[in-house]
């Protein structure tokens, strides 16, 4: 096994709930303010996943007060407490960047049944 792999395995989360592009998720983010810790929930659609192993990240898009917001999260970061899947989406591409120019009814995703 390569030496880099040894180090990476130590930092990888083993219990990541599988989710895919098109899913609607709730991301629980740990926010540290001084010694206090609180959890902020960010809900939206996963529109992209990139990278492999420890460096995997995913992009979550939501519409906040009429304005599109996208946040990129590293899957294995300590700041991500958990990712909750609310709804599985049925999509035909790996990157849903086309959602950026759609709004309202057109920007909906079909649910996988």
């Amino acid at each position: 096994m390569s030496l880099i792999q040894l180090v990476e395995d130590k930092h990888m989360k083993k219990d990541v709930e599988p989710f895919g592009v098109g899913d609607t998720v709730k991301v629980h983010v740990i926010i540290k303010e001084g010694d206090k810790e609180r959890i902020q929930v960010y809900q939206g659609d996963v529109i992209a996943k990139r990278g492999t192993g420890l460096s995997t990240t995913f992009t979550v898009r939501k519409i906040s007060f009429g304005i599109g917001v996208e946040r990129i999260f590293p899957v294995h970061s300590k700041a991500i407490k958990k990712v909750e899947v609310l709804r599985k989406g049925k999509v035909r591409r790996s990157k849903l960047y086309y959602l950026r120019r759609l709004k309202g009814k057109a920007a909906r995703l079909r649910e996988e049944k």
Partner: protein
Amino acid sequence: MTQGFDDKGNSIPLTVIKAGPCTVIQKKAKDKDGYEALQLGLVEEKAVKKPKKAAQGHFKKSESPVTKVLREFHYGGQGEVKEGDQFFVDIFKAGEKVHVTGTSKGKGFAGVVKRHHFRGGGASHGSMFHRAPGSIGASSYPSRVVRGLRMGGHMGYDRVTVRNLTVFETDKENNLLVVKGAIPGPNGGYVLIHKA
């Protein structure tokens, strides 16, 4: 290189270095050699296939197998060190600063834009000046090229030291040192690690 996460969950760039074990092959003494130093040999997984007779004799005194890499280090540490003793990665601790010296990647013959960060000229609109160095000296005065003027030439394959890298963690079992940031040289290159 790889990445890791700090306590806040921010991703940070990391380099994994196989650090040792290193055997003390020879002790240089003030009265005998004129200076104090330790000669360390890096023990690798693959042994040297057919060591030369001269090397065999040199390694005999410390009763250790012949190693490919031998380097001398100044030693100001506490405690008596004998020939044949070994150093492991546990001499470094997470949070400490280290200097890493290596040989940078060779770039071949490089022009002034790449080698000295000259700006170069415009690519189009009939500019006629692209990546050339420009004037290197006037005709009547000084009518010569000043010594040390930056020009194209061989770039890379230099001894480079990156100072004050933070140790992120150590792995005693596999003798791995993980430092924050990049170090000189290609993957699999040999480097020297000093405490800052």
